[in-house]
């Protein structure tokens, strides 16, 4: 009978502890914003280039959002619009402006139960004007949370 009582007690405590543990809310410590990473390169030589100035703005039908406005920069990272299958960017490099459109497919990705979902993207295409940009090529299609280089921008 004593054995039965101890089994029952232990079971009740275990179940209660598990139940209470499942009720606790954990904070999110993880990165949840996938960024498209690009490297600036000198056209012809293919060497890494450092732009004197770089300004990148995202364009929506209703707004323009400034992502980057920096000097002496050779790499940049911008997010893709999770509400659309394309993102339109105004890129002003050393004072000369170009327009670039990045096309992609979106897929939900569970970061963690605490952080919820984010959208990772697979780049499907690029279009750009060529005022200063010579070539914009896809190095790695997957825009995810790994921080890999996605684009090479030659100018």
């Amino acid at each position, binding site marked *: 009978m004593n054995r039965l009582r101890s*089994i029952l007690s232990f079971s009740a405590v275990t179940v209660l502890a598990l139940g209470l543990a499942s009720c606790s809310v954990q904070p999110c410590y993880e990165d949840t914003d996938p960024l498209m990473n690009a490297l600036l390169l000198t056209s012809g030589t293919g060497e890494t280039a450092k732009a004197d100035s770089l300004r990148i703005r995202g364009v929506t039908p209703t707004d323009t959002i400034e992502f980057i406005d920096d000097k002496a920069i050779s790499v940049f990272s911008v*997010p893709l619009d999770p509400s659309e299958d394309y993102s339109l960017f105004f890129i002003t490099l050393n004072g000369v402006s170009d327009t670039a459109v990045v096309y992609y497919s979106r897929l939900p990705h569970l970061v963690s139960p605490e952080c919820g979902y*984010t959208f990772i993207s697979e780049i499907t295409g690029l279009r750009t004007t060529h005022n200063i940009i010579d070539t914009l090529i896809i190095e790695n299609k997957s825009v995810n949370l790994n921080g890999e280089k996605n684009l090479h921008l030659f100018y």
Partner: protein
Amino acid sequence: MAKRTCIFFISLFLLAGSRAVSQDTVTVPLHIRTGFDLSGPVLNMISSNLVSYGIMASVDLNSSLTVTAGLRYSSFQSSQFIYDFRSRGTSIVAGTDYNFLKANVSRGKYYAGIGLRYGLSFYNEEASVIRYTNEWGSGEASMPLIRHTGHFLEITPGVRTEIFPGMTIGWNLYMRMLISAGAGKDLKPVWMPGYGAASSGMTTGAEYYVSFSIPYRKIKVIIKPKADQPEDEEETEGTPENTGTSSSGTGNRL
């Protein structure tokens, strides 16, 4: 002098002989069990997000080994600021339990051991609302209902006791190791029925079973082997009337 020496050797021989053939046996009933998990309904009272009902069945193969199988229906939903998630499905586990208690202690009534099981989960998941915010702004999206099949391994140390003939209760902890959620790396479910949080490679918890048992056979288990036999237990079929621990010195009876 020669006579005394002869008597000494004969006595020694007899003693040695009686040690060689002596052994103790115990008759152990083997059971078929079927039961249900109480922890699921109890957890449901604490947290209404999770509904989990489990049943199990097991058959004793011998005094130590039991083949067991379980069926569980689970439904989970989570409504948070950043997403609404729901999954539901049925999982099946099958494997064996090993009782560490010796036959003369367990007597077919008590169990303290460990089980190893393989589990399959047939489930679907859906995120009806995914709310996001980044530099482009805020918005909502969704993930449609998708069906998957996941699988996992389960290690379950636990105890069980017979509270009265035909009814046993017992709990076991479980450690489940995810082999695959079957949903790829991006769409791992927040909760995989039968397993738990699939974003983690291992989940732990406890189950509390009430089960009904029927003895289907009795076996005699040698608990003290002959001196010239290996230490392992040997089992033979017995008759129902030979219950309880028999006395030593019955080595030739089996």
